[in-house]
């Protein structure tokens, strides 16, 4: 019994050093060498300032930008506090929120049905993407706000639409941050990304 206890203690220490320290540090070094940008979170810069991560969503609420999905991470797109609402489909709070958001969006673009992803919070609260339909739904508003032709915006959305991985996996999607940065570039003479 005592022998097993000593072995158990030594085994915990020895394997912790191997699997809990050496292994993750080795992977960190390899990842930093092989995939530096991805290993550090794909940070994006504009005019020398870091303005976000390509794959972490941020909130856009003014009419001239494509809006992200609603978020329940902290008080909204808090990337140090990920999470969802965990509201059940029968929870009155969820139905009230969806109804009130839907009526606002319906006024903005009465000619189309509202894509459901634009009204629902994501699981992480940091979803960087919306569906192509959700981007299409917002085109008339942005065309109005920015004085750009809808066709131009449609082309911009298309060029920022990621198809399914390997043509099969997941869903088609549009990265909101990238799309909005491109939108700023499109409408501002001095817009630059570096």
């Amino acid at each position, binding site marked *: 019994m005592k022998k097993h206890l000593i072995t158990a203690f030594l085994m915990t220490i020895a394997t*912790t050093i191997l699997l809990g320290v050496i292994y993750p540090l080795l992977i960190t070094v390899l990842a930093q060498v092989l995939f530096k940008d991805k290993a550090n979170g794909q940070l994006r810069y504009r005019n020398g300032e870091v303005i976000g991560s390509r794959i972490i969503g941020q909130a856009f609420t003014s009419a001239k930008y494509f809006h992200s999905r609603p978020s329940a991470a902290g008080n909204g797109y808090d990337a140090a506090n990920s999470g969802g609402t965990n509201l059940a489909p029968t929870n009155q709070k969820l139905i009230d929120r969806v109804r009130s958001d839907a009526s606002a969006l319906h006024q903005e673009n009465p000619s189309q049905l509202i894509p459901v992803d634009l009204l629902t919070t994501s699981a992480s609260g940091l979803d960087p993407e919306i569906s192509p339909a959700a981007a299409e739904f917002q085109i008339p508003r942005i065309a109005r706000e920015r004085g750009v032709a809808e066709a131009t915006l449609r082309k911009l959305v298309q060029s920022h639409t990621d198809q399914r991985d390997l043509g099969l996996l997941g869903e088609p999607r549009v990265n909101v941050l990238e799309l909005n940065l491109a939108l700023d570039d499109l409408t501002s003479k001095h817009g630059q990304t570096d």
Partner: protein
Amino acid sequence: MTINGWLQIFVFLGLIFAVAKPLGVFLTRVFAREHTFLDPVLRPIERLLYRLTGVDESHEMRWTEYATTMLIFSAVSMLVLYLIQRIQGVLPFNPQHFGAVAPEHLAFNTAASFTTNTNWQAYSGETTMTYFTQMAGLAYHNFASAATGIVLAIAFIRGIARRQMNTLGNFWVDFVRCCLWVLLPFCVVGSLLLVSQGVVQNLRPYDTVKLVEPQQVQRLGADGKPVVDAAGKPVMDTVTTQTIAQGPVASQEIIKEWGTNGGGFFNANSAHPFENPTPLANLIEMFSIFAIGSGLTYTLGRMTGSPAHGWAVWSAMAILFLVGVTTAYWAEAKGNPLYPASIAQHASNSQPGGNMEGKETRFGIANSALFATVTTDASCGAINGWHDSFTPLGGMVPLVNIMLSEVIFGGVGSGMYGILIYIVLAVFIAGLMVGRTPEYLGKKIEAYDVKMAMLVSLVFPLIILTLTGISVVKGFGTTGISNPGPHGLSQILYAFTSSAGNNGSAFGGLTVNTLWYDAATGITTLVGRFFMIIPMLAIAGNLVQKKYVPPSLGTFPVTTPLFTLLLISVILILGALTFFPALSLGPILEHLLMQVGKTF
């Protein structure tokens, strides 16, 4: 439901089928201590570990010693994890300057949960755990608890395969070989694959970025609720920056899946873009959850000399998997009938449609339903969408999967010994039907074996239903409920089912970081793990001593579709009917009320 969605599901199942034999053969060779292509690298490390820890490689253990060793190791490593959490403030790799994990019951709950391969998380990773705790505490236990599960399954299979012997192997040798040969090499390759998809792997402090568009947000108090001013209006703040949590995620992400642990680096688990950034990463993660479980069915067949039996078990698992994923996909794709008609909930090429609350755009409905099924068929518990926000029937699928003891490919090792318990009962029932002493692969199944199998089958529902019962009638239980109505019962039922089944997923709205839930679910994970393992090893210790009985005309063949069907029936009857009354008051009632437009 779309054709593309079904294609994705069948491609996934095809991969799980394809991996069964090669991985099964590899596992057999590793635990038979035969030569593998990794020996030149790993054998010296293995010898070094034995020398450092004083393990005698040639020593063989009876079931009692095997069980004792495993228990001592679990207790010691659990204690170390508790201590790491409590002193993490002064340990290295703490760029956010987190203090000790507090209160004590949270640290206890986490230690119990990670030691038992549950990875129930009453904390939020990015606001609580230092990088050191994540790596050396939590990710380490992802290896250790997974290896423990796998070697126990191997010990059980040896109990069937060996004849007239006393011993089941050496726990330490099996454990070390499992870590080095089965877990580590795949994790090195897999974690780099995940990094190539965008899973982060660094030790840097959290980044602060300047938002493209500053936002007005509600100020949140310490309790996470909006702060209101004297007039009752929410206090608003202007936010110009976003803090982005970082960390050594990929190295932990891959073992979280490969070892069916499920404990996320971040609160949002595999829904977080830094844990699961692309649909391809999602496929790698789901594949990792099922791979070893699938391989072990072939190992079972190979070690016992009946590969066809392994495939018969695999088929039962595949059928149950398809039933689950079909139900979940169908229910989620239908969407929420309570939403107004101005919302498009049908799938098309430009949008996922369906019940998208708590789901990610890149995964849509098919991959969220598939992931939820996979993570609960196995005892993984990682999530890529919140089960709490699933439709009532969609959310019932993960719940029922855990109630069936997670034997559908199952947790690494635990799925195998779980289904072996069902197999013992199935051949016993078949034996009763023809009036003969039942045999299983040449071993007579007698009263002692069946008693132990029944003990396992009874402890599991007993602890779940008892603690759920207490929680729904006491204030300390019901205050945690966030979704009123029948869904509240589902939340509590899911919490205890998940902890007893060592799954770790949750109906996450339930507030569980309280003394009652931390203590009750923490103890439940320990009971659910070790009260399963000890009777299971007792059966193995009994079987290993028995003589081989050659098959006769009266032997019930365990390689036929009839056996597969019987096994499925036993699993469904024993597992599901035990819980049917509770399910009818939770998800089934909620489904019926939702159809008539009732909200809570």
